[in-house]
């Protein structure tokens, strides 16, 4: 790609400074929106651009904005909670190109006719928040935030709000609860935030990267934006490449114009030691696991194609897993994450992740039998479709798809496996099975 649209700081040094951002057309789109467009025109433009949410769900952004019910005040909240394992794109945007994100947030606020917007960042972004607080002060001083902006009748202020280490707050209703000073637990939907969101008022919640797309769309028009990507998946996307690759990092690519193989091999330099790609997690730890087959690797990366392959493009956090990795270990890792991050509100998720972790820990110590692998499958299947928010589904996605496609990896750890157990982190117990009556099972961590 010749020039970046989102990661513009890679083309323009010091873009995080307001002065530099202004020299490169900064806040022109916001000014254009406020002084020459109605909120509805802004919503229509974004809807026509075909921009879809970049946080995971992939919902059309303009459509979401159009759902706001006719009540005031309204709020716009940026979801900068970025906690999905394998995702680190919003962090780069907030650190290096924050003004483009703020401009997108401001345009979204104007479109929603909100006079107050919040940027919810995960607590670990502490140092970024310090810089962004200063940036907001600068914007207030320069008249980009405040009363009667650009002489129009529109007023806006933005505040940063730091979370404190809870993955669940990336779920939009949990995020709103968290801003309200409550535990970050998801709400029952409906009502959706567009109807009853922050402080029970109509609210738009958008991901950081989604918002960073908006200034381009308003400045150059939906048609120009649609020149990137495909008909159904227009635009550009930041792909976070991590795991077993030589050059992990963020890569901004047009949607649907590159295959997974190109991302992993051409941009990422392939797996270390020339190993084969065994599996791919397309949207972080919450993905359905895809096998590293030619069919998958040669698939163009857009929302529809990845969906057809059995996963979701989601946040495009591509974790590459090479052939040396044991999938029983991998699911232990993802399950430990979701067990830790389950907010405890819904029983199937709270209890189910606990028991899945128990089984997987036993399995990884080579202390399980084949029936335990079936039990793992059963426990996971019982969480499905029974939780208020997607975390339950996220927790079981890698487990169920790994069991389906890499069952041998799990069976190899069982005592009654046909073959000798695969080499594992810990040696198998010396004594045969029946003698293990009162062996204390140490908790994982």
């Amino acid at each position, binding site marked *: 790609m010749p020039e970046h649209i989102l990661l513009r700081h890679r083309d323009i040094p010091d873009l995080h400074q307001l002065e530099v951002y202004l020299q490169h057309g900064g806040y022109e789109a916001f000014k254009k929106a406020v002084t020459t467009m109605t909120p509805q025109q802004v919503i229509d433009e974004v809807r026509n651009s075909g921009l879809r949410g970049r946080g995971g769900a992939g919902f059309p952004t303009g459509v979401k904005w159009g759902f706001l019910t006719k009540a005031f005040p309204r709020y716009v909240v940026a979801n900068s909670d*970025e*906690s*999905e*394992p*394998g*995702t*680190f794109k*919003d*962090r780069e945007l907030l650190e290096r190109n924050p003004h483009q994100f703020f401009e997108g947030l401001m345009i979204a606020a104007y479109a929603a006719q909100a006079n*107050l917007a919040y940027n919810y960042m*995960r*607590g*670990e*972004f*502490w*140092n970024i928040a*310090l810089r962004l607080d200063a940036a907001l002060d600068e914007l207030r001083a320069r008249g980009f935030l405040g009363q009667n902006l650009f002489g129009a009748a529109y007023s806006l202020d933005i*505040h940063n*709000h*730091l*979370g*404190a*280490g*809870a*993955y669940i707050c990336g779920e939009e209703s949990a995020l709103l609860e*968290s*801003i*309200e*000073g*409550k*535990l*970050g637990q998801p709400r029952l939907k409906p009502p959706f935030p567009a109807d009853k969101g922050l*402080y029970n008022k109509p609210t738009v919640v958008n991901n950081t990267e989604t918002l960073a797309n908006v200034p381009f769309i308003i400045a150059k028009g939906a048609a120009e934006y649609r020149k990137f990507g495909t008909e159904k998946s227009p635009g550009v996307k930041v792909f*976070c*490449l*991590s*795991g*077993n*690759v*030589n*050059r*992990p*990092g*963020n890569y901004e690519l047009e949607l649907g114009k590159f295959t997974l193989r190109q991302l992993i091999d051409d941009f990422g330099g392939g797996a270390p030691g020339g190993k084969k790609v065994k599996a791919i*997690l397309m949207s972080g*730890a919450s993905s359905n696991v895809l096998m590293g087959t030619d069919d998958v690797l040669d698939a163009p990366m857009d929302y529809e194609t990845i969906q057809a392959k059995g996963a979701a493009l989601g946040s495009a*956090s591509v*974790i*590459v*897993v090479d052939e040396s*990795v044991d999938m029983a270990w*991998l699911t232990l*890792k*993802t399950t430990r*994450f979701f067990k*830790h*991050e389950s*907010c405890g509100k819904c029983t199937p998720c709270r209890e189910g992740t606990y028991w899945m972790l128990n089984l997987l820990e036993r399995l990884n110590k080579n202390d399980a039998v084949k029936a335990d692998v079936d039990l793992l499958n059963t426990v996971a299947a019982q969480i499905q479709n029974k939780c208020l928010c997607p975390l339950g589904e996220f927790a079981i996605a890698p487990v169920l798809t790994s069991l389906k496609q890499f069952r041998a990896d799990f069976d190899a750890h069982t005592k009654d496996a046909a073959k000798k157990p695969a080499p594992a982190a810990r040696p198998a117990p010396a004594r045969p099975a029946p003698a293990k009556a009162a062996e204390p099972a140490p908790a994982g*961590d």
Partner: protein
Amino acid sequence: MLRIPYCVAYGIREINVLAEKYRLEIDKILAKYPPEHKRSAVMPLLYLAQTEYGCLTQTAMAEVGDLCGLSATQVAGVVGFYTLYHDHPAGRRYVQICTDLPCALRGADKFADDLCQKLGVKLGGTTKDGAFTVEAVMCLAGCAKAPMFQVQDADGLHYHESESAEKPMTVEQAVSILEGYQKK
């Protein structure tokens, strides 16, 4: 400017060290949220209290509750829910190593074990001199620069990442980073 005593300004009757010491900061925090939704300020106020008290003691939680209209129990609920709030004393700093999947695929588990060995602690434990509590934590959005860790202290949170995939951080480098903190 007329200074109303903090107890009148915030409607607090008892002694509140936070309100006395951090009037300016507290006003700034409360101004971020609609006045009828003071409760929203609980998270930033807890960070402030944690800085002042080292950890969130009963007193700290009660003071925060007074400032944002919550009971001490409600504040304790919030503290218990989020991992970056600590309700018991630990080392002067937390060393939080990411051992989640993307980092683990790049050797973060071994890195964590080796670093613990160097520091003479077990994961979750505190060094003998009380300087560091070492923990394994969930993803910190630094996956491209694994292994990596953050240090949480009174000044906030600080990321320490590998230079690149080709040059992963060594345990020796991590130790020297931590030694830098002790000189502060």
